[in-house]
């Protein structure tokens, strides 16, 4: 009996001490973690909007640049980020939208910046994915992403048209895929066509 009580008491004591420690640690680190997460997103939005920033900038510095130059709006199913620049009255010259889609192992999240026609792509960035390192994960490499510049989301009839093809990409609606990452590349194509549909919905 005494033994059991001791065991129970010991378990409660260990549990309480560990839980207390972890709660304190989580409370302490929560603001830092949230800031990191937000900074990560902001870094990607600023990058696709081609706003220069210090690569090693802290979360506060990034927020300052972000708040000064970017205006955020919700457009249908998308978060839109307008590049407002120095003059808040001027028409935005570039808009970034968030994209999310299925990848091979998990969701792919990123941002795409578009010209004011909401169709021609300026830049693409994927900041969160679980693709195979060395193969599918290469979708976040500049060599792949740079191909998207100037490509168009829809064809002349307004249908989603952008494709990631195996090789020999031609014209404004095709980009070259990555060898060894066929499924990932197909999914990136899906994601782009899905974006085209979402933009259409907002337009209608």
């Amino acid at each position, binding site marked *: 009996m005494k033994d059991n009580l001791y065991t129970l008491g010991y378990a409660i004591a260990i549990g309480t001490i*560990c839980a207390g420690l972890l709660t304190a640690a989580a409370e302490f680190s929560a603001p830092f973690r949230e800031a990191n997460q937000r900074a990560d997103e902001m870094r990607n939005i600023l990058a696709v909007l081609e706003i220069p920033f210090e690569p090693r900038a802290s979360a506060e510095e990034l927020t300052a640049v972000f708040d000064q130059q970017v205006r955020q709006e919700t457009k249908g199913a998308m978060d839109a980020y307008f590049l407002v620049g120095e003059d808040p009255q001027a028409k935005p010259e570039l808009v970034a939208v968030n994209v999310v889609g299925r990848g091979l192992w998990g969701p792919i999240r990123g941002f795409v910046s578009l010209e004011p026609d909401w169709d021609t792509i300026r830049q693409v960035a994927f900041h969160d994915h679980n693709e*195979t390192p*060395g193969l599918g994960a290469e979708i976040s490499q500049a060599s792949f992403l740079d191909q998207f510049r100037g490509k168009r989301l829809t064809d002349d009839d307004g249908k989603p048209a952008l494709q990631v093809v195996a090789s020999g990409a031609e014209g404004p609606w095709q980009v070259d895929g990555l060898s060894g990452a066929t499924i990932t590349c197909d999914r990136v194509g899906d994601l782009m066509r899905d974006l085209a549909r979402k933009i259409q919905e907002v337009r209608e």
Partner: protein
Amino acid sequence: MSTAPLDPAATAEGCGGCGKGFCDGKGRAIFKETSWTSNPVAVQTLGICPALAVTTRLENSLVMGAAMIFVCVGSTFMLSLLRHTTPRRIRLIASVAIIATFVILIDQFLQAFYWEMSRQLGPYVGLIITNCVVLGRAEAFAMQNKPQLAFVDALAAGIGFTTILAIVGFFRELLGEGTLLGYVVLHPDWYTKNLVMVLAPGAFVVMGFLIALFNWVQQKDVQGS
């Protein structure tokens, strides 16, 4: 495969053979035994999972190793302190609770201050909780020995683990990406990156050679003495 019991006669030369000091003269022998003779990864083949998963870059290997050293030293020291008061029936669950606490502490620390690194290591920092090296040292050593000795033993296990990870990370980053700690060593103009090294098979190959090397060297040691 497991740690041989320490022979008091063989360990007397540690700490200058005085038999006193911080670790009762056993420190050096314990350190050599745990980090080299029965190295947790290369000899006991424990902790293989992170050794294969996070060693794509040298920096990742080193941070993972540092996290491992922190958890191993902290938790086994605590467990050794509590070894007489812990009820035997809940010994294992108490060990895991304490190990988990240290793991979550370091994980939160990385997430707060080394965000990029934390994202690259992914779930593997959290998985230290189930790492056989930590629980192995806790069960096999810390439960029977004084806190100072448990400290030395855990440090040795952590350093042994880190060294292996660093060696694997060194070769994988060098051959797979042509860089070391992010600096270009093998220039892409004349060096073709070897994708196999970045992927899992590369880790198995490097690890296989490393274990073979360990066996060979230690065999020679035994024959030579």
